[in-house]
């Protein structure tokens, strides 16, 4: 019993990651509003950032700054650095996404998936 609780509680970060991941993924798939899709995408990406950052944590480890003391335990800085890159990528993706949404609003007058599809279907019929 203790082992099981230990396993469950000891991996709480993964549960958090998976819950966030699913919330974000649901937002991407189920929402027709494009801004909400991007928000979902951001939550989805953030869950992955957390997956990486939490794996870099070493028990009792300090921030990875050289202290000169050879017995110091450091957390692994590499996942943090990777995620720094991934955050930049995420920000750029969000920026491109919102830029597209602005253009879509300008030319369709809506940012709802269904309305856009309906407009395009009408166009096909008249064409």
């Amino acid at each position, binding site marked *: 019993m203790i082992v099981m609780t230990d396993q469950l509680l000891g991996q709480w970060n993964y549960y958090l990651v998976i819950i966030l991941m699913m919330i974000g993924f649901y937002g991407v798939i189920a929402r027709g509003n494009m801004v909400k899709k991007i928000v979902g*995408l951001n939550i989805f990406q953030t869950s992955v950032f957390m997956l990486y950052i939490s*794996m870099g944590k070493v028990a009792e480890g300090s921030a990875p700054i050289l202290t000169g003391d050879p017995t110091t335990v450091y957390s692994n800085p590499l996942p943090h650095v990777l995620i720094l890159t991934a955050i930049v990528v995420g920000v750029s993706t969000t920026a*491109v996404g919102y830029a597209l949404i602005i253009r879509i609003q300008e030319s369709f007058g809506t940012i709802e998936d269904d309305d856009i599809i309906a407009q395009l279907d009408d166009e096909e019929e008249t064409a």
Partner: protein
Amino acid sequence: MMQHLPILQVLLPLLASPFAALLRGRDVAWGLTFVTTGLAFLISIALFFQQRAIGETMIYELGNWAAPLGIVYVIDAASALVLPVISGIGFIATLAARQLVAAEIDARDHGLFYAAWLLTIAGMMGQVTTGDAFNIFVFLEISSLSAYALVAMGAGRDRRALPAAFNYLILGTVGATFYVIGLGLLYMLTGTLNLADLAERLPHVEETRAAFTAMAFIALGLFLKMALFPLHFWLVPAYAHAPSAVTALMASTATKVSVYVLIRLIFGVFGVEFPGLADAVGLLVLTLGIAGAFVGTLAAIVETDLKKLFAQSSIAQLGYMAIGIGAMSATGLAAAFLHLFNHALMKGALFLAIGMIAAQAGRATMGTIQGAGKQIPITMTAILFGGLALIGVPLTAGFISKLYLIRALLEQNFWLLAGLTFISSALALAYVWKIIEAAWLQPRPNGAPVLRETASQYIPAWIMVVATLGFGIYATPLVEAAFAAAHVFIPSVAGAN
């Protein structure tokens, strides 16, 4: 200088990109792009022959930091084969872009257009060269983000480009994120991101569920990126509404690079011996591949918009590459490499020729090309040869790749699959015939706009057609290179080819 070639071919387009963005006036930005892609093409050809001459893997250490701490660029038989495809198509598409972009993009945006164009090429070259798994992700996003922008630039003529680019962005990002999740799990298990190092350390943890999950995430993410059926829904609208030059570039390179990365990860890192790989991924890829071949071909048969028609046919052709991968043998992989190479040439030729029609007529549909065989015979003949190569008619490059694909399937005794591959290839005749019939057997309707062709319009497409025929008639060097590429991942067995 010579030892820096592996990095130069990525750096040149990357560095030229901001300059292109600053340049005004359509020919200046184009000229810079033309020279840069030309140089990248020359470098990748030089690398190909250098690698063939040495016969072993060339490693370039960035900033002299040795692997696994530093990032290395790897030129082996596989990357040396794929690099000239990307830079070559990039170069010839740039050659054609001068007219296509002038016709389709607002003159004020040309600098930005070529900036994104160069970035997407740099990103693809990087993905193929790098030996670091996280580096692949970064290059993947560089090429994808600029590709979203390029697709959206079709909005000047066709506003449907905008939702197409948006959906492409959403699915592309989901795919790339899946890849990163898989990578995170691998890093947790092994503590390394270097591909060669990963391959060495993975066997110690290959029985864990985490390793299998990592493989599943990576494969799924790349399936999305390579538009494997049924994850292909972003591809057709994106190709159909993008500017014609972008369609030609992306259709021949973007998905191919993802196929290459999939091969590199699945065979180069996990390896054929990885538990569950042959059953799970192999079987899945085979099934989806053949399903995609039929669905894509059938959808192409009923399509009337030429860009959409050949985009659907791309789904089918990607299915054949997937079948080659799923065969899990050296011959299968060689067939996948051959088809990757040949399909890039055929689709490049087709989309460049169609682009020239679309740039003049606004759209390229069955109606637009009705009776066009007499008006623009040279362009239509290029489309005809491209179509014949897609079917796999002998003397075209398409025949060679289909031949080796079916051979790979027969080696494994997949008789049914070989039969289905043959049938779906033959079905492609239906949509090619539809084009022949419209262009040559029907009269040009009264009042239809007059289509024109000049040498500068059809030469880029014809370069690709000639290459398709050339590699179809004299295939030996290409087949050798493809087998060398396959043997990077699956060592050759004595007596086998």
